[in-house]
């Protein structure tokens, strides 16, 4: 069974203070690892898909990296508008119907 663990559960940052979120996963063959951002009261917003170890993707102040066991979401010089819950999900090659397995998320608060 695919499993995803995210850490920390919550992160408080000062504006400009860079940090990283961790997503550890167990899957019998990775088809893709997905990062989403979720604002309160809204649906998750797609950020990145990573397919193979060593791959990196960037979008504004966010950079996602992937190894064979975990993924990191680096937030560089964050701004208050980066405050959100960040969700990680995996899709295994044996996942029936392209099922995603989500981690518990990391709540990020960036203070001005």
């Amino acid at each position: 069974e695919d499993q995803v663990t995210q850490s920390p559960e919550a992160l408080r940052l000062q504006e400009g203070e860079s940090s990283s979120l961790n997503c550890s996963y167990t899957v019998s063959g990775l088809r893709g690892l997905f990062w989403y951002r979720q604002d309160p009261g809204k649906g998750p917003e797609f950020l990145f898909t990573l397919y193979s170890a060593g791959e990196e993707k960037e979008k504004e102040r966010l950079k996602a990296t992937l190894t064979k066991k975990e993924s990191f979401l680096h937030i560089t010089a964050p701004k208050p508008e980066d405050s959100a819950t960040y969700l990680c999900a995996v899709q295994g090659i044996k996942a029936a119907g392209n099922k995603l397995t989500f981690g518990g998320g990391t709540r990020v608060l960036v203070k001005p």
Partner: protein
Amino acid sequence: SAVISQKPSRDICQRGTSLTIQCQVDSQVTMMFWYRQQPGQSLTLIATANQGSEATYESGFVIDKFPISRPNLTFSTLTVSNMSPEDSSIYLCSVGQGRWETQYFGPGTRLLVL
């Protein structure tokens, strides 16, 4: 990516009643998914709905409690039946598109059962 809408956006219901949630997509998609997000929790897949076939339910979810319809390639409904306060959650639909069917989510339906 697809534009997804859900109705209603929120509702307050009495226990024992049922609520049907609609999910509309602006393009034809093969796979649609229904998730539940309980307060302070992450997303849990309820079922996968493909047009023209019965929905596939995850462990712990049954058709009698969460019947799903998928009449065409742009629309689906999820009914939460015989509701109890434990059903209070955000219900989200998503669609798969592109390489490896990346999932894009609707805005969610916030349900409170009294």
